[in-house]
Structures are given as C-alpha cells and as structure tokens.
C-alpha cells in the first residue's frame, strides 16, 4: 500500500514532468495570444492580402491534426532549417523537442485565439472607438488604450476554453520525445509494470490543473466584469 502512495518512489519524476507540462502550456499560451491578436487584427483590417493570409492560417490549423502539425514542425522543420543552413554554410542546427512543442502548440492555438479575439473586438462598442479617434489618438493608441482593455471581458470565456484545450494538447509533446508528465508516466509505468497506475495519476494531475485554472478564470471574469450590470 505504501508503494502506491509514494508511487514506488516515482513522485519526483512525475512532478518534474508536470513542471515541463506547465512550462510548455504557459509559453505556448504567450505565442498563441500574440498570434491571436495579429490574426484578429488581420481579419478585421481592410487589407485583402492580410485577410487572405489570416484565412489560410486558420483554415490550415482547423484542417490538420495537432499531432501531424507537431511532427511536421519537429521532424520536417529540422530538415528544412538544415537544408537552408547548408546553402549558407551554417553549422548543423538541432531542433529541440521543447522548442518544437511550444512553437507548434502556440501556432495552433493562435488560430483559435484569433477567432475569439475577433469576436471580442467586434463586441467593443463603436462609440468608444470613435471617441478615441475624435480625441486625436493614433490608431495604435486607440487599440492599446481603448479596444484592448475593453475587449478583455468579451474575450475571457473563449480564452478560458482555449486555455483548457491547450493544456490537454500539451500531452502530445510526449510523442516527439519531450519529457513531460505523459512521458514520465510511460517510463515509470514501464519499469514498475504498473502503467495504468501512472497514467491514472497523470490524468488526475490534469484534472487538478483544470480545476486550478477554473478558479483563476472565475477570478479574472469577476475582475474584468467589475462595474458591468446585467
């Protein structure tokens, strides 16, 4: 029984994997937020070319599985970069699974964030934006001082959903060899011959991350809805 509670001494490995999972999730979230804003702005702009690029980006992401995208960037990106590098006489570049995982997940959820932000920006009342322009603010000032703060409230529900799906998507990085929770569970499960136990523990840890996220999201929602009466 004691063996189960201290997981045959594998807790440190699993928890170390958990920090990798969380690091991948948080870093890719930043990339996703950045790409999401750019995508939303491109889709809402009057520039046909930008609209087209953003459209192709979201369509590709929606049409290709995350796993295929990840192996494409990890294995394919490695070959591509080194093919280019060969022409310029660079040294061999080794794409790390961590970087490939973060970039892929950030790239994928940037498209979903883009859709969320597009809706949120459209929900900001036109009058506020016009008022900003009337004050002589530059378009950049209008965006950072008016549109961005006002859209957060509208974007939060979609953002929360995207984040929860993103966290689960990080489990895929184990496939490209990153030592996250799932990978650690595989190692521990293999050496103790108790794979179910370890995958079960990791599943519970994912539920813990989800539950903690929900508390945080509730708090954010309350904060950004201050002063709003329904």
């Amino acid at each position, binding site marked *: 029984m004691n063996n189960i509670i201290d997981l045959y001494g594998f807790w440190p490995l699993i928890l170390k994997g958990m920090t990798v999972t969380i690091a991948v999730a948080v870093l890719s979230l930043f990339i996703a937020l950045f790409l999401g804003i750019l995508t939303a702005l491109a889709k809402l702009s009057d520039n046909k070319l930008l609209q087209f690029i953003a459209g192709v980006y979201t369509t*590709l992401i*929606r*049409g*290709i*599985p*995350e*796993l*295929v*995208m990840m*192996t*494409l960037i990890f*294995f*394919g*990106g*490695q*070959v*591509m970069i080194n093919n280019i590098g060969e022409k310029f006489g660079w040294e061999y570049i080794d794409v790390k699974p961590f970087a490939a995982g973060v970039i892929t997940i950030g790239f994928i959820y940037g498209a979903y964030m883009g859709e969320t932000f597009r809706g949120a920006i459209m929900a900001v009342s036109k009058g506020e934006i016009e008022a900003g322009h009337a004050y002589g603010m530059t378009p950049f000032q209008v965006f950072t001082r008016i549109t961005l703060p006002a859209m957060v409230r509208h974007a939060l529900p979609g953002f929360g959903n995207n984040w*929860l799906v993103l966290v*689960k*998507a*990080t*489990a*895929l990085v*184990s*496939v490209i060899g990153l030592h996250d929770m*799932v990978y650690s*569970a*595989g190692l521990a*499960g293999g050496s103790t*011959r*108790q*794979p*179910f*136990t370890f*995958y*079960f523990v*990791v*599943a519970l840890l*994912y*539920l813990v991350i*989800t539950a903690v996220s929900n508390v945080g999201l509730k708090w954010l929602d309350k904060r950004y809805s201050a002063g709003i009466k329904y």
Partner: protein
Amino acid sequence: MDFSPIIENLPLYFKGLWLTIELLVLSIIFGFVLALPVALAAVCNIGWLRGLAKGFIYVWRGTPLIIQMFMIYHGMAQFDFVRDSFLWAFFREAYWCALFAFALNTAAYTAEMLRGAIEQTSRGEIEAGKAAGMSTFTLYSRIILPSAFRRAIPAYGNEVIFMLHGTALAGVITLIDLFGAAKIVNSKHFIPFESFIAAGMFYLVLTFAVVWLFKKLEGHWLKHLKH
C-alpha cells in the same frame, strides 16, 4: 523537396485514409449511442444517476485523449483479471483499444452538448406537450429530443472534426492510419516534411468533407431558421 516517394507510397496513404475513416465513423456511431443515455442521465431527477453522468462527462472532458488511450492500451495489461479473461482478446489489440478510447471520449463531449441542447428546450413547448397529456417518454421522443438534436447539429460538426483529428493518435499505438502511414514513409525514406505534409493534406480534405456534410445537414434540418 522530393515528392516522388509520396507518389510511390500513395497506396499506403490510401490504406491509411481508409482506416482513419473507419475509426472515425465507428467511434462516432458508438460514441453517439453511448452519449444519448448519458445525456438523459445528466438531466434526469435521480440524484445519484445525474451525479454519475456528470462525473463521467467532467473526467473525460478534463483529461487528454492520449492518456485515456494509453490507460486502455498500455494500462489494461496491468490487471490479471483482464489478462486472464475473455477481455484480453479485446484489450490486446491496438485497434479495439483505440476505438474504445475514441468512442468513450467523443461520447463525453457529445453527451455534454446534448445536455446543453436538452436544457435549452423552451418551457412553452414542454408545457404544451404536458397539457396534451403526453407521458415523459412521449414528451422526450416527440418534442424534446427532435428539437435538441437539431440545435446540436452545428456544435456536433465541430466535435466530429475534433474526433477526426483525434484519430491520428491511432498512429502512435502502431496502427497504420493516415498518420501511421506518414510515419512509415518517413522512416523508410527520411523525408519528414513531405511525408507529414502529405498526410496533412489528406486530413485537410477529410475536414472539408465533414464541413460540407454538416452544411448539408444544417441546410436540411435547420431550414426553418434560415432567413
């Protein structure tokens, strides 16, 4: 860039495509059949049954599909009672494990969607049914479920696309679906970019097909909502 090995291996890709479609269709069917009773349990007024259904939905939607699949494919061998029983013939096969994991996963998402759609039924319709003397069964089969199914169609289309993408995990546990085929081509010729982009294009076409299909379904079943 060299796409000639891809052309050479097109039969393998088509074999993979077929398995992907097969896994998708079967898991969607099994998942839906399972989702309906779960959704009904989640809206019923028997406390423990409702709790059980909601618990299943919460746990399955809150954990990654890949872990659910590993728990079944790698995990079941841990239990002697599984290994020593007729169940082993089932859990030994990657195919059945993948299908089982996919069906349970999509069942949870579909049940949650149906639950939402059932709860959105307008009070007036239900009252009208009761006033006409319908039993609970008749009420559900004639009023609540038909309108809930219609309402759920757009969201269900998204779920089918998510499931299509989820089936790529089958390639991780040795099955030769589209992703598995790409892995084989890559390991034979070491052309990761070409082999995975080819699989990606197949998935893209499949996604468009699902989107098109659901547009048709919406056009038919949600015609009354068109302006």
